[in-house]
């Protein structure tokens, strides 16, 4: 229900209403009080007022920006996305996708596909990433829900899609959907044993949320992890954290055997015993608030599920009391090395697999046989949010960036993942970055550079630039620009940015407009969203 803060508009009031958009998923508007409204974003007017169109309301609607949380455009799908993940990261957290075309002591020029060339003061650029992670990113998201699959022990190949309302999150129909032959009266096809229908993960604003009391539904992707992989994500939680993170999963399982009564054993929600059936031959890292357990999962020669807790001399971790952390798993199937990093700090390491005659691990016996990964909350009343998921190839070098931790020098990390240089980046000429280092002058072709991190003590202070009232535009597959909304229509928006003045950007690659970006994910826990 639309509350009193909406301003009913007479059809005669002029506004920048354009023709109906093409056949696309509708947009979704979320309010700070938890209300939401499907429809079509029409632009921004003076004072940041957002114009909205909906078929069952005559005329466009003007909405107060202070009451808005977020607009999700086209169900989180871009009209077109950037081909590359190359970007420039600013000190205020913005990430501008594009290619550097100019560079001097005071200014960095970036050519973008959505806003032309932007000129940014050098001291507001924290990092240039022409080829993040060496260009070997296999997945970055989530931006759309249907790239993911949800399973549980009753539906290990995929939970059937629920009834669909307009704009609802849509699940992919699993290829081998299990459908009971006959349903008893009152029995739900999604709950053939008469239990509650399976709970689903909720997708909103480039993040997945688990907000249910019960546990037991996985969220998986079947592909993406190479032999040497990084799996990284932003994790936020409330109450007790109890989350399983599966990696190098093949989701393979033998045919289920019935017991002497002809029944197939169903595992209860959240049972770790279900891991082999849900993830196949895999590893599952079970993360609690202050410790972790790594499980090896698979099946034995009799096709019985096997789950082994891997002994570690240390299982303690330190998670911030804020209820949010960055997790990074680095796993090497070839050598058996598995490392966990929390908030960019090393936490725990395991060594799996056999060793050769020299005592060097060779990965034989590594339990994870696949390329998939996934998540599952393991206990009741344990809400979590997972976002900024990156899966990339790992070069094996654990701490290349931190090896050169210097505040007064720029650092260049090459795309080969091993080479690194420190000095002063003086310019960009003929497609090459020029570095003056104590060992001499070097020129690096942009496509051989993974990251350039600028000396911290030469950067401006972020707090010098107020972000109050800013709108954040999220682009697909990477990018965020923020500024005060000046004006806009359904296809573009003009922001007054702190670093580049007024910037007009096309919204073809935009997927989310955050009007009151919440620093507390708690605000998103309202089940009504």
């Amino acid at each position, binding site marked *: 229900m639309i509350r009193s803060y909406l301003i009913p508009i007479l059809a005669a009031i002029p506004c920048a209403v354009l023709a109906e958009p093409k056949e696309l998923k509708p947009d979704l508007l979320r309010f700070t009080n938890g209300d939401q409204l499907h429809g079509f974003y029409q632009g921004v007017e003076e004072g940041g007022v957002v114009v909205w169109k909906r078929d069952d309301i005559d005329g466009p609607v003007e909405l107060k920006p202070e009451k808005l949380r977020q607009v999700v455009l086209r169900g989180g799908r871009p009209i077109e996305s950037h081909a590359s993940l190359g970007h420039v990261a600013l000190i205020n957290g913005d990430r501008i996708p594009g290619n550097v075309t100019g560079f001097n002591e005071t200014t960095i020029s970036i050519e973008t596909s959505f806003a032309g060339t932007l000129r940014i003061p050098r001291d507001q650029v924290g990092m240039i990433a022409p080829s993040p992670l060496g260009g070997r990113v296999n997945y970055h998201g989530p931006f759309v829900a249907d790239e993911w699959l949800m399973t549980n022990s009753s539906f290990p190949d995929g939970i059937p899609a629920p009834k669909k309302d307009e704009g609802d999150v849509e699940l992919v129909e699993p290829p081998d959907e299990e459908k009971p032959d006959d349903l008893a009266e009152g029995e739900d096809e999604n709950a053939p044993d008469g239990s509650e229908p399976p709970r689903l993960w909720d997708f909103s604003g480039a993040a997945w949320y688990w907000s249910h009391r019960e546990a037991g539904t996985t969220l998986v992707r079947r592909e993406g992890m190479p032999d040497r992989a990084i799996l990284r994500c932003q994790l936020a939680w409330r109450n007790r954290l109890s989350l399983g993170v599966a990696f190098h999963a093949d989701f393979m399982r033998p045919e289920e055997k019935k017991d002497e009564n002809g029944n197939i054993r169903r595992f209860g929600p959240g049972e770790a015993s279900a891991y082999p059936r849900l993830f196949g031959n895999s590893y599952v890292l079970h993360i609690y608030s202050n410790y972790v357990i790594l499980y090896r999962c698979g099946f034995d020669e009799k096709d019985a599920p096997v789950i082994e807790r891997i002994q570690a001399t240390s299982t303690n971790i330190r998670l911030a009391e804020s209820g949010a952390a960055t997790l990074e798993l680095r796993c090497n199937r070839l050598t058996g090395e598995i490392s966990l990093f929390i908030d960019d700090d090393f936490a725990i390491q395991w060594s799996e697999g056999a060793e050769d005659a020299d005592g060097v691990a060779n990965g034989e016996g590594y339990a994870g046989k696949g390329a998939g990964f996934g998540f599952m909350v393991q206990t009741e009343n344990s809400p979590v949010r997972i976002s900024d998921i990156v899966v990339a190839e790992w070069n094996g070098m654990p701490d290349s960036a931190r090896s050169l931790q210097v505040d007064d020098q720029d650092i260049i990390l090459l795309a080969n993942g091993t080479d690194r240089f420190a000095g002063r980046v003086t310019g960009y000429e003929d497609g090459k970055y020029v570095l003056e280092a104590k060992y001499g002058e070097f*020129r690096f072709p942009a496509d051989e550079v993974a990251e350039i991190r600028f000396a911290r003590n030469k950067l401006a202070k972020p707090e010098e630039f107020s972000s109050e009232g800013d709108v954040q535009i999220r682009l697909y597959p990477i990018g965020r620009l923020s500024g005060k909304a000046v004006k806009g229509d359904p296809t573009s928006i003009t922001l007054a940015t702190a670093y580049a003045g007024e910037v007009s950007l096309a919204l073809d690659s935009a997927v989310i407009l955050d009007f009151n970006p919440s620093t507390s994910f708690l605000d998103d826990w309202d089940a009504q969203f």
Partner: protein
Amino acid sequence: MIGMPSSNQIALAAGIGFLAFQPLAADSLSLANDSRISGTIRSIRENGSLVIETPLSTEPLEIRGEAVRSVSFSGQPGEFSAPPTRIELTNGDVLPVEILSMDEKNLMAESPLTGPLTIPRDSIRSLQMGMVDSRVIYSGPDGIEGWKSDAGRAMAWGFEGGNLKITGSGRISRNLEVSENFIVRFSLSWDRNPGFHFSFADSLQPISEKSDRYYVTFSSAGLEIKRESSQGPRYPSLATINRGPETFAGNKVKVELRVDRKRKLIYLYLNDQFEGRYIDPSSVSPPDGGVSLTSTSNQGAEQEVSEIELLEWDPSGERHRTEERGDVTQDALIASDAARFGGKLVSIRPSEEGPLFSFKSDFGDDLIELPESQVSTVFFAEKEEAEDEAPRKPLKLRLRGNGSIQVDTCSFTEDKAEVSHPLLGKLTLFRNGISTLERSAPQDQSDPNP
């Protein structure tokens, strides 16, 4: 007779190999099935068998190489100062050397084990520089002086036979000026069930008060590394090693802890074997430098602590040596400031600052020139056409200065060992540079002595 091979396996010494009939002190040979024999090692044959002259036998014994677990040489160690560089050869052998120069084909070096060496460049896998002995902060014990018991408590520890010794329970401590990153090691021995705490980076506050320190505990339950913290959880456990006293031969264990306080990491070695790397989850590492020894054993149980050392430590070299090799078609140089370049190590030439490394990076027009003191690690490019890996030699000589080489054949005189090395050809080593001889491949499980 223990260790006696069959008659078919005994060859007459006079007809075989390179024997010298000089009287030598007794070497000790450990064989399979806990057999042991002492005598004088005369040679190692091409088939890997050892020839040992022993008063237990009328003729020298030739023992199959796969039956030999290890040999400890009895020669007087003499003066030995390990040079700061380690050459790793393509077959995994390591030689401590002082680098002199290098050209397109060969690296010229000097080793206290061999004298001058010329090593073909394509036999080298890597160079590790800066392997100097760390500055010793404390080495002891040499008495009970300097150690204090807790206030108001009698001194329960004593000094006997070069060791700190206690019967029953008690604690002593000592304050030390310790660098930010350091190595601490000690040996612990016990007669019954050990109960021992060793604290380090300790503020030496009374135990009843909250403090910041690390400590390692050892008991029948195993070994644990813990952190005591004055903020937050008081005793977080950093590592639990499920190895009880029965797993350590001779009721003795050597413990080494390498502490990187900046990165809040602790590396554990037990009996010189790397056990693991552990992180301190606390926000700040303990800043102080005290150490304490606490026995929690029952009355009558004896424990002794010896070979206590604290040394300064630079952990960066450790990281560089274990870095990913990366592009094997290029040389790679890691500087001591952690910069890393790919390209080609053109040459090493003498200079006033010591050997000067000239490196050509793909991204610079000029050569990068660094004195050896600024170089941490060099990886050499691998051959384009990798040769078939040579079969591993069954026996390996452990050299002082943390070196090791595999040998085809070896013969010994009073002060030298003549070896045939698969990559370096004929080498003469000073016998006092060899610490042990051991197997370098998994042992055959069959009984070598039917």
